[in-house]
């Protein structure tokens, strides 16, 4: 059952990702990115990261992607559907990406037997994920938390200033 769910979510994620980068219509691409992000949230739930599962849906799918869809609707030109979608470097880029992927795949494949960290991982899993995430966030990682909030404030101000019409 566990592996069935894992294969379902991973096939959904990979298929949606491939569909997203190949769509001519950007709104369809955004919808497929939403499906990919939901599949990723499912993977998080499978890894027993419950808080991250919900945060992924609320923030990524319910926040960032709404932003993307709004901007796509504002800049979508009808004429752009008939233009060339892929740039002039597409073959070189694809070969490069395949080489990179092959390199990393070789690295993972060679070391695959030493990655099973087994019982230590099982024993240390906290039963209440949200509570342990909250405690770690506010005790050990308090400084990055405050820095992240300042970062969000700066990003908010920057985005508002840039998107305003200069009257």
């Amino acid at each position, binding site marked *: 059952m566990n592996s069935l769910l894992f294969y379902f979510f991973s096939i959904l994620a990979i298929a949606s990702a491939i569909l997203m980068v190949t769509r001519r219509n950007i*709104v369809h691409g955004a919808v497929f990115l939403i499906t990919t992000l939901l599949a990723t949230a499912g993977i998080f739930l499978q890894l027993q990261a*419950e808080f991250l599962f*919900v945060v992924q849906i609320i923030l990524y799918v319910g926040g960032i992607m*709404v932003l993307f869809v709004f901007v796509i609707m504002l800049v979508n030109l009808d004429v752009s559907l008939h233009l060339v979608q892929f740039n002039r470097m597409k073959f070189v880029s694809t070969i490069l990406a395949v080489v990179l992927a092959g390199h990393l795949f070789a690295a993972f494949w060679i070391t695959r037997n030493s990655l099973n960290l087994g019982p230590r991982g099982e024993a240390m899993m906290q039963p209440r994920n949200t509570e342990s995430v909250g405690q770690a966030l506010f005790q050990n990682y308090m400084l990055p938390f405050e820095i992240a909030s300042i970062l969000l404030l700066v990003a908010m101000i920057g985005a508002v200033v840039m998107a*305003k019409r200069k009257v």
Partner: protein
Amino acid sequence: MNHVIPPSIQAYVLPVLYGVVVVALLPLLAGYIVLLERKVMADMQARLGPMRVGPHGLLQPIADALKLLIKEDIVPEKADRFLFWCAPVLSVTMALLAYAAIPFGPVFQIADLNVGLLFILAISSLGIYGIVLGGWASNSHYSLLGALRSAAQLVSYETAAGLALVSGLMLAGSLSMKDIVQAQYDQGVWFVFVVPVGFFIYLVGSIAETNRAPFDLPEAESELVAGYMTEYSGFRWALYFLGEYANMVVVAAIATTLFLGGWLRPFARYQDHLFGTSIELLDLLPTILFLAAAAYCFWLAPRQPVQIQKIVMALVGGLCLVLAAGMTGALFAPDAVRLGIHGAFWFLAKVFAYIYAFLWIRFTFPRYRFDQLMRLGWRFLIPLALVNVIVVGTTIVLQQNWEWRHPMLSAIVTTAIMLGVAAFLAREGSAPSEPAEVGEGN
């Protein structure tokens, strides 16, 4: 109940069964909430409402559903066919998915998630896509404007509602819906009496979340020709409508669980028994309510003008008597059955009271203009919700760490501080009398 049913069935078959029941009953329930709304609207406007289809209009939802099913399915010429099909389906799916985490009683829950409350919040935030993609796919100006306005409204009020939920959550100490109701039982008080301002913020936020009046500018007929739903007809429109009313029930269920005590009866810890038996006095309240309803029906029956209405009124009275007998019988059943049935009764009663408040507010207040709406959300509700979280957090820390043990005084002081802040913010939140320029504002 845990020892009676083998764990394998309990883990897999029961949730599927509950899920099937919810999905099968929900369209019927949504249809009858529509009928209830029309009858309540008529009553508040001193008229009768639907009376023709079936006695007292009771078969009206079935007639409406049939009409919508056999209507012609019109797709605009340049509409994006994939998204045009997808958007109502998305809206309904998200509304139904939220039912997975709602506790209808101590027993009837499809899945008791550790993060149940956040899960429902996440699913509600996914409902925006049904609206935005539907407005875009229709390829029409009214639809797109209505969809963008509706999405902006939803995103704004979702923040305020979430922060109001956080203030109730701090009192409960857990995200699991069952634990939240259990915490209200343990503390002996419904959270609405401890954080009334939080409940008020959630009430306003949930009205805006479900696009109900007075926040229904994006779909009002006189404003934008039904907004993002303009180009949808027949069954697709029925799906949007179903999603909207299912969403209303979900939001009412969250408010009931978090603030109104969930499936607890009033004064849940008061245990005065009836004349030496093991029945608690307050557990007879459902029976008394149903008997009163039956008496009212039987009193009304001879005064109906038409024969069929007399018969149906008498039948409804009989149904109330049967329900009263069922409630009393459940008191003698084993614990799980008694808790299950009475818990479900109180939960549904509170959900319907909340929905009645929605209907009442709809027919009382005039509609908000869009800039007034955004101003209210961003400049009044969100600061108020933030201050609410800070004040409630401070009070809890005072109670737990510094041994301040006066709960009623804390509640009164908290509410007084919040009302002061609200009075200060209200000057910000009221819009100027001339409308701001839409879209080009600086």
